[in-house]
């Protein structure tokens, strides 16, 4: 390389002070890379692999990756050769900023003086689907012998329509692809509900089933599969029901919303669904309304049987 064709170190121009010299690393003749790590906004808690870091997708708070050199000087930082998904320049030349705005895996590599290191940063997200038809997914917990005794999803009745339930199988597709190998723990499948229930025409406030605000309704652990399967999916199961809870009649109207959290941070948009059912002892069949579906409904303010 001739003197007339000066080289600019890879980070120059997009981060630190531009350094022109004949043969990089300029001002850092014996410098070596010591390590590359994540300085902020990602974690290794519940992450497998020494080089893997993860965080939840977000529009702010970029992940900061930082290299350490020996000597750990500005001149050596300028000489670092960044490669892979290098993001944008950080506040210092030994740092890179990775945007969290999309769910993807960043492979960031740094090299200096014959030494190199890398980190993989996973920007996590989940898309929740509420399955209300077909059968329980194979990798989900199965209903087994409970409720109608089948794996059929949707509105089911049994016992000559004396009981009804809305069986759903919420499934979360995690991203980026392959996340199941790296982020095996820390997932939670959350659910909130608002219910308007009447038993014999009386609002079921005592059991907290007549609400004006969202209530935690997250499934018990036995109904969830929270370790991602090979298809990067985690699973929940629910089946709100209507049956002989009153002397003469019972009605239930419920809106649900479900989402995913990772390490306590929200990691999905809400997926909404509803269930409504009516039971009347003297009617034939006893269960006259048994309806489940996606989205939320307008919850009635008056009892159907006792308007």
């Amino acid at each position: 390389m001739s003197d007339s064709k000066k080289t600019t170190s890879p980070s120059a121009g997009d981060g630190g002070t531009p350094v022109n010299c004949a043969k990089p690393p300029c001002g850092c003749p014996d410098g070596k890379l010591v390590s590359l790590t994540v300085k902020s906004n990602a974690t290794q808690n519940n992450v497998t692999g020494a080089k893997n870091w993860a965080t939840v997708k977000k529009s702010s708070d970029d992940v900061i990756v930082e290299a350490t050199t020996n000597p750990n000087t500005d001149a050596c930082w300028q000489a670092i050769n960044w490669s892979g998904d290098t993001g944008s320049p950080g506040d210092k030349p030994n740092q890179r900023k990775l945007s969290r705005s999309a769910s993807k895996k960043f492979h960031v590599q740094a090299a200096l003086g014959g030494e190199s290191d890398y980190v993989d940063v996973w920007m996590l997200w989940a898309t929740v689907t509420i399955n209300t038809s077909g059968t329980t997914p194979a990798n989900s917990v199965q209903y087994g012998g409970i409720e109608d005794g089948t794996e059929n999803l949707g509105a089911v009745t049994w016992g000559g329509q004396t009981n009804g339930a809305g069986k759903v199988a919420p499934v979360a597709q995690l991203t980026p692809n392959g996340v199941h190998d790296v982020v095996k723990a820390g997932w939670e499948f959350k659910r909130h509900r608002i219910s308007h229930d009447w038993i014999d025409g009386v609002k079921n406030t005592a059991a907290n089933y007549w609400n004006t605000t969202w209530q935690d309704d997250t499934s018990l652990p036995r109904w969830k599969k929270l370790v991602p399967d090979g298809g990067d999916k985690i699973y929940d199961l629910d089946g709100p029901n209507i049956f002989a809870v009153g002397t003469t009649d019972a009605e239930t109207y419920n809106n649900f919303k479900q989402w995913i959290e990772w390490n306590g941070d929200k990691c999905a948009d809400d997926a909404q669904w509803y269930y409504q059912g009516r039971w009347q002892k003297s009617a034939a069949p006893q269960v006259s309304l048994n309806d489940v579906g996606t989205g939320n409904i307008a919850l009635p303010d008056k009892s159907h049987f006792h308007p």
Partner: protein
Amino acid sequence: MKYSKIAIGIILFLVLISDRDDARAMKEGAQVIDQQITDVMKKLDSLDDRSRMKLISQVDEQRSELLGVLVNYLDTSPSKNVQAAAIYMIGRHRLSDGVDELMRHIDFQSDEPLRGALPLWEKFPSMEALITIGNPSVKPCLELLATDENDLHRTLAVKVIRYVESADVALFVLQQAQASEKDVKRKEMLADALDRMQKLVKETR
């Protein structure tokens, strides 16, 4: 350190708080379990092979002791909630040595199912526990179906076999048991069980 005693203590703690909605206590319990497991795992590499195997084998002692404690609660507790919890935990931990106890309590009925999210158990927790334990439950259920005339017992035993196996395998198991039975009375009882199974499979396939 007596890890098995600690484990039993933890289980008892969980049983005792099972009637309460005490999220904080549950969290603290989980932290204690985490710490105990971490302590054991850290210790493993500092032990020789024999000691390591002995320490790991304590899990078998724990399971045996746990079953003993749970069966004791099942037999003596005046609380239906505690009895149901004991049954649930025998099933959840797949303590197959407890199958006979569960068979003995196969018609145990828990309180009314809760409104809301799916509960840990429904009306017949022993039946559910036997299903969870799986294959070791099938033979005792076949024996019950060959000998026990109680209608509810028979209905529940048929359900256990139906949900341990797939529908077709459950039918096959009963067909084989009935076909190979020599005793006339037992053969009749198994024929009745097969009829029940056919109806159940038809309803639930």
